[in-house]
């Protein structure tokens, strides 16, 4: 497929615009006619990510841009066979559009050079991922991240392991899953607290998570296809004590606390699991801990 007409559009896209390539790069390409535009991060910023294959030199020797390089001395080029630094381009901010030699004119117009420079000075962002690469089916991607985080949560006293996913810092990006159980529903779910920023939103999410399950528990006849309109009631009043159910959580000290008592960010940093309890049974369970945890900022929600 021809992508030449879209050369000047340097906004990163999912697809690569590849080019006919030269022979082996290692045999000095001075006679090569193909001139290629390579982009990299400014300074040495992205170089660590480029693994051990980093090149600094030969691209410049090929190029048009050898003297016009305003992007900083050290570039994370790969001196590959005519390929742009695609190996780590995903960690570079600019898209690597490789120029087709037959379109030389377009390629080396000032406009594209400027845009290139502009792009390369952007901050390094999350990797521009390519659709369907690496070739892992989506159910494997999702499961890996949630199971690794569960391990991080539950084996905090374990021997430090080499499991790569176990990084609290990264968990913010991947989601912060805590278990949540509801009275009367045998199977627990997980809720991603990173997806919310307030108690209201969490309360709505809990309602959505359990509404159907609760209705299914009530209607126990086998094989009945659940009609979403029938038999469901919204689960409300989770936070204010007025509903049939109340949301509580267990914190890092093992205490049970009513949800909503502390500022949201404090809640997120101490919560270990959530429970949806019947309000009628609340009094017998939680009174003590509630008193101990009288919040300083009672009006924070």
């Amino acid at each position, binding site marked *: 497929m021809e992508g030449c007409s879209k050369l000047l559009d340097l906004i990163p896209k999912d697809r690569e615009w590849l080019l*006919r390539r030269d022979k082996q790069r290692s045999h000095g390409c001075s006679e090569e006619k193909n001139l290629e535009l390579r982009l990299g991060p400014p300074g040495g910023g992205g170089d660590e990510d480029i693994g051990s294959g980093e090149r600094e030199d030969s691209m410049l020797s090929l190029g048009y841009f050898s003297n016009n390089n305003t992007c900083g001395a050290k570039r994370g080029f790969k001196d590959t066979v005519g390929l742009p630094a*695609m190996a780590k381009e995903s960690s570079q901010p600019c898209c690597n559009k490789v120029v087709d030699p037959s379109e030389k004119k377009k390629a080396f117009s000032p406009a594209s050079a400027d845009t290139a420079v502009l792009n390369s000075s952007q901050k390094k962002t999350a990797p521009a991922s390519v659709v369907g690469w690496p070739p892992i089916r989506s159910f494997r991607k999702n499961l890996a991240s949630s199971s690794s985080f569960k391990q991080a949560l539950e084996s905090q006293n374990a021997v430090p392991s080499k499991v790569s996913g176990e990084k609290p810092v990264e968990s913010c990006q991947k989601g912060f899953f805590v278990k949540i159980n509801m009275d009367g529903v045998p199977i627990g779910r997980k809720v991603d607290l990173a997806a919310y920023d307030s108690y209201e939103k969490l309360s709505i999410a809990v309602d959505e998570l359990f509404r159907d399950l609760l209705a299914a528990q009530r209607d126990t006849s086998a094989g009945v296809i659940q009609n979403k309109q029938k038999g469901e009631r919204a689960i409300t009043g989770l936070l204010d004590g007025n509903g049939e159910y109340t949301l509580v959580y267990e914190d890092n000290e093992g205490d049970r606390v009513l949800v909503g008592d502390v500022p949201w960010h404090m809640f997120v940093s101490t919560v270990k699991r959530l429970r949806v309890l019947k309000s009628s049974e609340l009094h017998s369970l939680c009174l003590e801990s509630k008193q101990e945890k009288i919040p300083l900022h009672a009006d924070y929600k």
Partner: protein
Amino acid sequence: MSEDRAEMSEDGGESSSPSSATKPRGCDVSGGGDYLSPSADQVLDNVLDNVLLFLTSRRDRNAASLVSKSWWRAEALTREELFIGNCYAVSPRRVTERFRRVRAVTLKGKPRFADFNLMPPNWGAHFAPWVAAMGHRYRALEKLCLKRMRVKDEDLELLARSFPCFKELVLVCCDGFGTSGLAMVASKCRQLRVLDLTEDDVIDDEVDWISCFPEGETSLESLIFDCVDCLIDFEALEQLVTRSPSLKKLRLNRYVNIGQLYRLMIQAPQLTHLGTGSFSPSEIVAQGDQEPDYVSAFAACRSLVCLSGFREITSDYLPAIYPVCANLTSLNFSYANISAEQLIPVIRHCHKLQILWVLDSVCDEGLHAVAATCKDLRELRVFPVDAREDGEAPVSDVGLLAISEGCSKLQSILYFCQRMTNAAVIAMSKNCPDIVVFRLCIMGRHQPDHITDEPMDEGFGAIVKNCKKLTRLAVSGLLTDRAFSYIGQYGKLVRTLSVAFAGNSDMGLKYVLEGCPRLQKLEIRDSPFGDSALHSGLHHYYNMRFLWMSSCKLTRQGCKEIAQRLPRLVVEVINGSEEDEMEDDFFDVLYMYRSLEGPRADAPRFVTIL
């Protein structure tokens, strides 16, 4: 007599009509009232039928059917197992008209690269017309295996109603159906022995399908539903297991916790294949809580040879499986984010292991341990925990080398990594000569050998050269046309080739198309191969099941020329997203395949057939 024989071998049986299937053999159909001794024709037919019954390999049968018309007919009437590698290569009607006594059908639909979102989901591969046609003609159907087909609940319902003898349903990578459809199968297929759902995308319409199995003893031998991501009624499941004395294979989904697993295991110690569900408790268990004796539950399963699941593993419970490790031939830890330290005590016991799937969280060190113990290993798959291009690199060439040195019987490997060297790949090519499937995915695109910075050409070249039985190859990393020249030169048995972000020029693809006579399935993405390269395969495309090329350098005109030159080829150009018409020349995917039927009628708008 001799004349008769000559005739018969060419054109024998012309007098027979399709309904001869029902006529008693050995009777002279064209004679008068009296019974005459069977003619040579019929004798041969008799013999042929009986002999052909023993012919099970479809390749042999295909060959037999080409001998003569009578052989063709006899073969068609005796073939019981159908394999259709591309559901669009032939129509349901043609199939059901030729083969009349089919008991088992395998049907495959979408191309594999569709799994990675490279084309919109509603491309096709509908099961509906097949089940409709088979429902009419194959009343005795017993087994069905579908891969990458779109199966709707209505289709499952029709299946359940149409085939009274139905025994085995295997769905792999299918979608379009939900728990309602499963409920139909469970309740209506009274002789069901096998219900295997693997990597399907099942819609949760919250129907409790497990409860839909009929009361009383079942004939279930295999129940695999680990991919069905829906809550189930555990009590119903437990009852089902209790009344299924023949159950040998049970793979649970992640909603079954370890306490529930225990209860099932003590009901079914005869299991040979077990998928353990979440393998963690439903609630955080405090110290000193009474817990079931998991170890003895595993110890009681003396026939267990295949273990999987561990979907949300709490590694504290891993030691429970020690009693079965020594007998295991297959272990799937590919959902278990465990470290080397956690793997080693387990793998140390697994001397008989032949198949191992793990996450790269076990690191090179874990792979060392595998290499040290699992001398019988045939298949290894290492999946990434973090499937990104610039992620961590817990496994590398070191692990691959270790495996190659310890597991000389290796036949199949799928290995995801961030760093690799030619040396390690070359070593594997020499240490593991039995390799049939070699799939290496270096996740960073265009990554060279991380020590020498060379392209990965030599490594893959060594694989095709030294692994003389190689039939399936997936390449990655920085590759020049040289790698493809090696493949074309040495890969004489290669049937499936997957290429991504590789090659320099049209020569790469030409080497392969001209050099690999057995090539059946070729899938290429984001590689600089253009129309000229595409043309170089004209002599071969009718021998292939399909060719997929996406984000390469093809033009619509180039593809059209192929379509014109090869009328029996269906040439589809596909838009990557579901926008309406295709603009000018631009398309994302070329998917072409041989077909007896011509352009399919069910192509969606984002597909154009040239």
